[in-house]
């Protein structure tokens, strides 16, 4: 728990940097837009309609969609920018709608009175209409504040640190206290900001200058803090920092920490981790140079990027071809293989396998029509699944997508019969599951390989050297043990990585 709380200042600051700035921009965009829509009648429907459509896009999808859009525009597509733009879009509707409503519902007699005393349209807006609509507009700002702060937790999967780091990594590594800390912190922040905005409104309406001053002062301080830290980070970003990517599962969290720790240790350069990137997001980010290094698996690149029909192939042949492909086609450097494979493998309860005498996937074929299969979100869309199905002629009674962290438990408890397990997951042995032999070689080998950008190699060959020292240092058992320490042992990926690195550095 205290380990979680140590992370709070960093996550909270990052969260504020996204949410507060997005909110400020959202307000400055949506209020003038609302005034315009209230003035120019034909604009009202299209503007409100568009904002409503944006609002109906699920939050996670809205942020995720920014990644390819920004990439297509050759802008930084992971990290702060996609999260920021997504949140700004999301924050607009409540404020926009309330601005339009607030202005539209002003007593027309008062608008007439304002004209009658000789106000110009602009004076009317500034002195009468806007102040009268303000309580409604502030209600919109409050709604938007709560939404934006909550939704900023979804910045994590697009590569921006936020309180969502607690939630996403906590869910993946089954660390309930991390999830709780993240939820409570985000909720507290949302309520605090909402409360401050409310105090500003009350102070203004009832002319309680003390209250108004305190609330505005508190908000100003928060913005000042956010601005200063953001500015400092921008300056630091100019100085160099190596960014390590991590996909959304325990092993990746651990490996990214190991990579970052190793480079910092050997080169003295700062290295940070961008957590919980989607599989293709990570690859694209490396290709575009937004992250410098991450770990991927040879078979994944073989199947999803090279579109190779799989078949019996040995580990080193695949490695050689993948390396050549990445270098020639994408300018990506394969630093080397870590020493273990994390393959997609079909697994089932040992007891059930023994009862049905299943040891190989071939043995599964006759029983499959009576069984169900569970896979992670990607699995059923991947080339490997197609290859397995076609090679063996497998057909299951039912198939279910689920979170990889829940998959093993689901198999152990009999909620599904077969799962697409990751071979390094410590829970396979812990939960007494059996991996079925891929006897016809439908699934390629999955060596864990360190991928680095050409830029990193060019600018910091010493960092590549540091990484090269990791090659061959992690075997399958070591990886399984480290995964289990996080998934079942309740340790954090960072702590497990530190233990590993300490041992590594102590070796002569």
């Amino acid at each position: 728990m205290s380990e979680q709380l140590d992370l709070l200042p960093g996550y909270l600051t990052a969260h504020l940097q996204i949410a507060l700035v997005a909110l400020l921009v959202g307000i400055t965009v949506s209020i003038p837009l609302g005034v315009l829509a209230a003035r120019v009648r034909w604009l009202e429907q299209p503007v409100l309609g568009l904002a409503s459509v944006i609002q109906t896009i699920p939050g996670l999808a809205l942020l995720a969609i920014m990644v390819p859009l920004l990439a297509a525009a050759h802008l930084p597509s992971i990290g702060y920018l996609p999260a920021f733009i997504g949140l700004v879009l999301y924050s607009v509707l409540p404020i926009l709608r309330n601005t339009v409503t607030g202005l539209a519902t002003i007593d027309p007699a008062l608008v007439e009175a304002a004209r009658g005393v000789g106000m110009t349209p602009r004076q009317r807006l500034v002195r009468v209409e806007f102040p009268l609509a303000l309580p409604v507009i502030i209600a919109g700002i409050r709604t938007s504040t709560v939404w934006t702060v909550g939704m900023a937790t979804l910045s994590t999967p697009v590569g921006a640190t936020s309180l969502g780091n607690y939630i996403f990594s906590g869910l993946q590594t089954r660390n309930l206290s991390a999830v709780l800390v993240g939820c409570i912190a985000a909720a507290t922040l949302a309520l605090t900001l909402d409360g401050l905005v409310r105090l500003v409104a009350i102070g203004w309406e009832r002319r309680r200058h003390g209250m108004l001053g305190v609330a505005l002062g508190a908000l100003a301080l928060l913005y000042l803090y956010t601005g200063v830290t953001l500015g400092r980070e921008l300056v630091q970003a100019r100085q160099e920092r190596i960014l390590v990517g991590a996909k959304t599962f325990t092993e990746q969290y651990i490996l990214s920490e190991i990579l970052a720790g190793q480079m910092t240790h050997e080169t003295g350069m700062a290295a940070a981790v961008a957590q919980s990137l989607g599989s293709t997001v990570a690859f694209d980010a490396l290709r575009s140079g937004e992250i410098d290094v991450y770990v991927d698996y040879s078979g994944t690149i073989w199947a999803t990027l090279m579109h190779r029909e799989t078949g019996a192939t040995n580990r080193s042949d695949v490695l050689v071809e993948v390396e050549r492909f990445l270098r020639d086609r994408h300018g990506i450097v394969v630093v080397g293989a870590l020493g273990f494979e994390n393959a997609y493998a079909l697994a089932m309860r040992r007891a059930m396998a023994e009862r049905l005498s299943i040891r190989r996937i071939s043995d599964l074929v006759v029983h499959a029509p009576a069984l169900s299969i569970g896979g992670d979100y990607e699995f059923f869309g991947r080339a490997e699944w197609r290859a397995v199905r076609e090679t063996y002629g497998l057909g299951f009674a039912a198939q279910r997508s689920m979170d990889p962290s829940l998959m093993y438990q689901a198999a152990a408890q009999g909620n599904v019969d077969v799962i697409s397990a990751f071979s390094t997951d410590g829970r396979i042995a812990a939960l007494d599951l059996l991996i079925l032999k891929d006897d016809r070689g439908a699934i390629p080998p999955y060596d864990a390989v360190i991928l680095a950008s050409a830029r990193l190699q060019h600018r910091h060959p010493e960092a590549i050297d540091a990484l090269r020292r990791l090659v061959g240092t992690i075997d399958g058992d070591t990886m399984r043990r480290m995964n289990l320490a996080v998934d079942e042992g309740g340790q954090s990926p960072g702590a497990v990585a530190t233990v590993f690195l300490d041992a590594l550095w102590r070796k002569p």
Partner: protein
Amino acid sequence: MIEVRRLTKLFGDAPAVRDVSFAVSAGELLALVGGSGCGKTTTLRMINRLIEPTSGTVLIEGQDVSALSGHVLRRGIGYVFQRVGLFPHMTVEQNVAVPLSLLGWEAGRMRGRVGEVLELVEIEPALRQRRPAELSGGQQQRVGVARALAAEPKLMLLDEPFGALDPLTRDRLQRSFLRIRKRLGLTAIFVTHDMVEALLLADRIAVMKDGRLVQVGAPQQLLASPADEVVERLLDTPRRQARAFDELMAGVAR
């Protein structure tokens, strides 16, 4: 001072005001009288161009009002609204100061003038920091008059200013308005549907019906020779009330 020539307003195809002409000389108070919907408010609003006339002209001191931009024109004309029209988010003082700040008065002079007009309409200092919602209907209407008077306008337009008040309050306000008018020598056009009010306050009365002007004249003139049965009927009510009252008083005296 002010001359209205052949003023006409159509809302779509429906005529609200038809071919209305009259003149008001400096220092005079004209009452515009007629039943509900006969076009009084519309006529008044065309004078300060809150509504643009379909045809016809309004001249103030010989100048066509359409030559000025609307907001500049309106800053020089006091307007008291039928429904109060005070700004609810401003204090009494801020409300009264609005026309002055629009004219760019500096703060000290503005403060002095606001105090002056509020005194004139008998709003005591304790009420001046309040919001309109914290005042009685009569007090609100006084503040409305003060706001219209603040910039020392050449012309005042009042749209049923006392219509929504109880009889006692209305009487007090009418008398105080008369006093103010005498003191300032105001030129004013005053809309009312109440002939008694018109007879009491106005120098001359203009009677409207269905958007047309039926008769314009001094109260005595109307009483002596009403132009048609519309005017007659309007005068009937106060006459009957006065007669009934006299009989009652006679009974009490006996």
